[in-house]
């Protein structure tokens, strides 16, 4: 079956990543003793051009037929090496990777142990390559439609860019309107233009674009399939208002008697009715009934909104609807929220209404916000005279209270807030407690310096240890000025916390559905931190905005565009080469029993009556036939087949057994 292989083994140092805990020379030495190995060498960076050249050279000189690279995870560079050997003239599927970095050098400290394990992993890979056979990829189709999950600025921008390139794109947004966090902001740094003024046109453009469909108040329910051919179930939650009939007149919200529901849009600082549009510029401008707080849904009596609606759009009977659609590419743009402050009781956030988060301050400063844009204390409506800003609340905190990362946007928005307040209310004293002021970015540091130099914001290097509400309603702030080496006790009437941001709560569920990687902080992982920053390791899934890591608006928009380009690049293809690691039948062993057909999730197995020549016996037999375009190579059939007639190319029974044997030897 398999001819005798001539195998080359290439051991990568990965700088010191591998070489520090694995004796790479020894690995190469031991590999040389294995069956089929005719060449073994080590090199600093196998994935570098020079490293790849070494492989190509060895292939030529020693007429290699199989390659083992002992390096990082195959999820990282398998394709690199496959391409490299293909250029050197051998089939790319003759490469196997021994993962001696993620699965070895990075987790073991003892060099002897690490080396021993690396040798065994190399032996297993060599044993497998001995049984490898050249494979040829098939082709699969590309559905020319993209899905964007999340309708914030990231999702909107990605969708617009994809739509402009001429491809259909759907946005799924879980809240009743697109717009996201940016719609909650008042002004944007460093230019101080009004957030709504620059966002609203984009929202309108997206909603009017012929290539864009927007599903608001909807969530992704299920994702199946693979790059180029995803099938997604979208749950359109019952809005209780007919989108086609509603004219957006707003009378229903006005007349709704259930008015005292915390407004999500205003971060709970104001109220909304039970039938509501989250904000004036909402898109679509169609209200939704919050069934939990609606009197009609709670008691069965009321129905005011239905009575006042001229268009007859209110529909209490509306049900959730599941829409199933096919997509070629999926972009995650799920965004962020601020962390809960329950564990930071030293800042008295839960005790005093006058201690607020920066995002809440955005609403307070906004003309459409709960105070109509007047800066006032939420406890008594009085104008504050002393405002203290506290930076890094929960950011850069490696205890379990906070987040270990820098939230990146706080330094700039705090400078913005301080500046705006000093500009509008010159009598108000503003003090900012900071650990470091981090303002890299175009015109960013200039902006921060302006807050200090032109607007007289008092920046204090140090942290706040305690905020204590006083009987007179003021707040005692105790902090430290590390440069003066003094503890400061000052009275304030408002404290603003630069609260850490974290990925939106539902992202883990979405990552799971997409089989996209997610890190310990719930940020979606990029395929490569430098070189593939907008792609997820899962093919066909791209990342846009804060779901991948903290970033400000310009960065988000830039990344959204980059994600769009990647998606467009995929959609532009008519066909994708498919994984050639598909199932095959040995016609002489097949019983024709249909067991494999029963477990195949893709319907890739059918049966045909075929004449076979079984060692001289010619007869027509019922034999399983695999459709390579449909087969995804899971291997379910191979285990259900009792005779072993069904096998998986690239992960054959004998290959896996060879690996098992090599490990247990």
């Amino acid at each position, binding site marked *: 079956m398999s001819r005798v292989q001539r195998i080359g083994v290439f051991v990568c140092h990965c700088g010191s990543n591998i070489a520090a805990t694995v004796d790479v020379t020894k690995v190469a030495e031991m590999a040389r003793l294995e069956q089929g190995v005719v060449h073994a060498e080590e090199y600093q960076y196998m994935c570098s051009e020079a490293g790849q050249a070494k492989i190509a050279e060895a292939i030529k000189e020693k007429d290699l037929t199989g390659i083992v690279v002992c390096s990082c995870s195959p999820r990282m560079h398998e394709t690199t090496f496959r391409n490299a050997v293909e250029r050197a003239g051998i089939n790319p599927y003759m490469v196997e990777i021994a993962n001696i970095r993620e699965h070895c050098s990075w987790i073991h400290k003892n060099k002897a142990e690490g080396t021993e394990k690396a040798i065994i992993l190399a032996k297993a890979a060599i044993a497998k390559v001995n049984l490898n056979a050249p494979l040829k990829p098939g082709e699969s189709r590309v559905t020319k439609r993209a899905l964007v999950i999340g309708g914030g600025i990231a999702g909107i921008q990605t969708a617009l860019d994809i739509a402009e390139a001429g491809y259909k794109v759907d946005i799924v947004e879980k809240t009743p309107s697109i717009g996201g966090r940016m719609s909650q902001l008042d002004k944007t740094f460093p230019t101080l233009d009004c957030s709504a003024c620059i966002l609203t046109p984009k929202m309108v453009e997206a909603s009017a674009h012929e290539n864009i469909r927007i599903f608001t108040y909807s969530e992704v329910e299920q994702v199946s399939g693979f790059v180029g051919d995803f099938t997604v179930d979208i749950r359109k939650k019952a809005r209780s208002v007919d989108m086609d009939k509603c004219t957006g007149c707003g009378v229903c919200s006005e007349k709704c008697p259930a008015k005292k529901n915390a407004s999500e849009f205003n971060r709970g600082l104001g109220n909304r009715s039970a039938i509501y549009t989250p904000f004036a510029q909402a898109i679509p401008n169609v209200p939704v009934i919050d069934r939990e707080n609606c009197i009609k849904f709670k008691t069965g009596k009321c129905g005011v909104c239905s009575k006042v609606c001229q268009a007859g759009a209110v529909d209490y009977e509306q049900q959730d609807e599941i829409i199933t659609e096919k997509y070629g590419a999926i972009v995650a743009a799920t965004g962020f929220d601020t962390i809960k402050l329950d564990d930071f009781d030293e800042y008295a956030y839960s005790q005093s209404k006058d201690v607020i988060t920066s995002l809440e301050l955005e609403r307070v400063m906004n003309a459409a916000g709960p105070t109509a844009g007047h800066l006032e204390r939420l406890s008594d409506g009085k104008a504050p005279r002393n405002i203290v800003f506290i930076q890094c609340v929960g950011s850069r905190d490696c205890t379990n209270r906070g987040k270990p990362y820098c939230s990146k946007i706080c330094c700039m928005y705090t400078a913005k807030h301080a500046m705006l307040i000093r500009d509008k209310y010159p009598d108000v004293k503003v003090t900012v407690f900071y650990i470091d002021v981090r303002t890299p970015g175009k015109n960013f540091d200039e902006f921060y310096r302006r807050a200090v130099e032109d607007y007289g914001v008092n920046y204090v290097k140090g942290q706040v240890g305690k905020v204590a509400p006083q009987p007179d309603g003021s707040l005692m702030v105790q902090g430290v000025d590390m440069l003066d080496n003094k503890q400061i006790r000052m009275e304030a009437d408002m404290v603003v916390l630069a609260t850490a941001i974290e990925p939106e709560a539902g992202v883990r569920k979405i990552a799971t559905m997409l089989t996209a990687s997610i890190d310990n902080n719930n940020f979606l992982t990029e395929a490569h931190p430098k070189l593939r920053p907008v792609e997820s390791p899962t093919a066909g899934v791209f990342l846009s905005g804060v779901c991948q890591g903290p970033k400000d608006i310009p960065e988000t928009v830039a990344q959204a565009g980059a994600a769009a380009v990647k998606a467009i690049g995929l959609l532009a293809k008519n066909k994708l080469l498919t994984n050639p690691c598909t199932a095959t039948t*040995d016609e*002489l*062993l*097949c*019983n*024709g*029993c*249909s*067991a494999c057909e*029963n*477990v195949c999730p893709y319907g890739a197995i059918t*049966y045909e009556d075929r004449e076979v020549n*079984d060692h001289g016996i010619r*007869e027509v037999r*019922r034999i399983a036939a695999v459709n390579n375009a449909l087969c995804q190579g899971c291997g379910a059939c191979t285990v*259900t087949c*009792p*005779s*072993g*007639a069904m*096998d998986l190319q690239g992960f054959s*029974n*004998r290959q896996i*057994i*060879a690996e098992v*044997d090599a490990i247990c030897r």
Partner: protein
Amino acid sequence: MQELVNRAGELLADGSVARVLGWKAGDLSYNPEPAYFENAEALEQFVYNGFCGANLSKYMIEASKLEGKTLVFLKPCDTYSFSQLLKEHRVDRDKAWIIGVGCHGKLDIERIREQGIKGIELVQEEEDSLKIQTLYGEKELPYQSVMLERCYVCKGKEHRIYDELIGESKETDTGERFAGVAEVEAMSPEEKFAFFQRELSKCIRCNACRNVCPACSCRKCVFDSNKFDSAQKVNVDSFEEKMFHIIRAFHVAGRCTDCGECSRVCPQGIPLHLFNRKFIKDINELYGTFQAGEDLETKGPLTNFTFEDAEPGIVAERG
């Protein structure tokens, strides 16, 4: 029996069937063997008695490839195997003329010997007893005391599939089907290990169990092919006999009708049905009662699942 021979003769004579698959007398009175009969003359050799335990369904795989129909005599439990094979597209229904034969339970010569009866020359079946002529005189035993293990836990005397029925049956299930399995399950790990070690070390890898099993009907067994680097004619090490029996049981899990042929034919007397029945018991308990061969539609438990299936950890939880 004569009724069977007559009917077979008729069908052969009018050309309805090309051959008859039944049992013929063996060299000893208690070991009839499966045989084809192609004419009336040959049918003189036909027998059907208490020792005709052999399940003829598996022979129908090959018979399905022959020209014309084959008349096959199937006992009630054999029909489960036939319909399971039909479900797996291994036999051709159109090539089979099935006569369902009655069954009073089948006899186990080993049990008779265990009663201390030696030098057996002839066994005569009476209504409820056996008259046994031996070199040492005539002995009598109650029929019900010396049946095959499987008959005490009979699935019922109803044929699952047939063209016609001949003969009366008699219920024989007086035992508890899973008692043997439960007994082993109750043992400590050490005892279990010792028990199976004792039993399996007797295995001589004659493959009789595999060859007789209607579910073990692969064209080529994995243990004879190089697909898993597992080709072996004899056990290379003591592990392989375990491997063979575990894998064999696993391969037939969800397909084994519990016909008991494996235990019947084992020359070493290994209670092989304890493997298959363990899987059946687990399947029944974990995934709902399932009887292979009962119908042609129900999905096999190993080619099916539910979202709420037990996790493998349940093995430890059950203790």
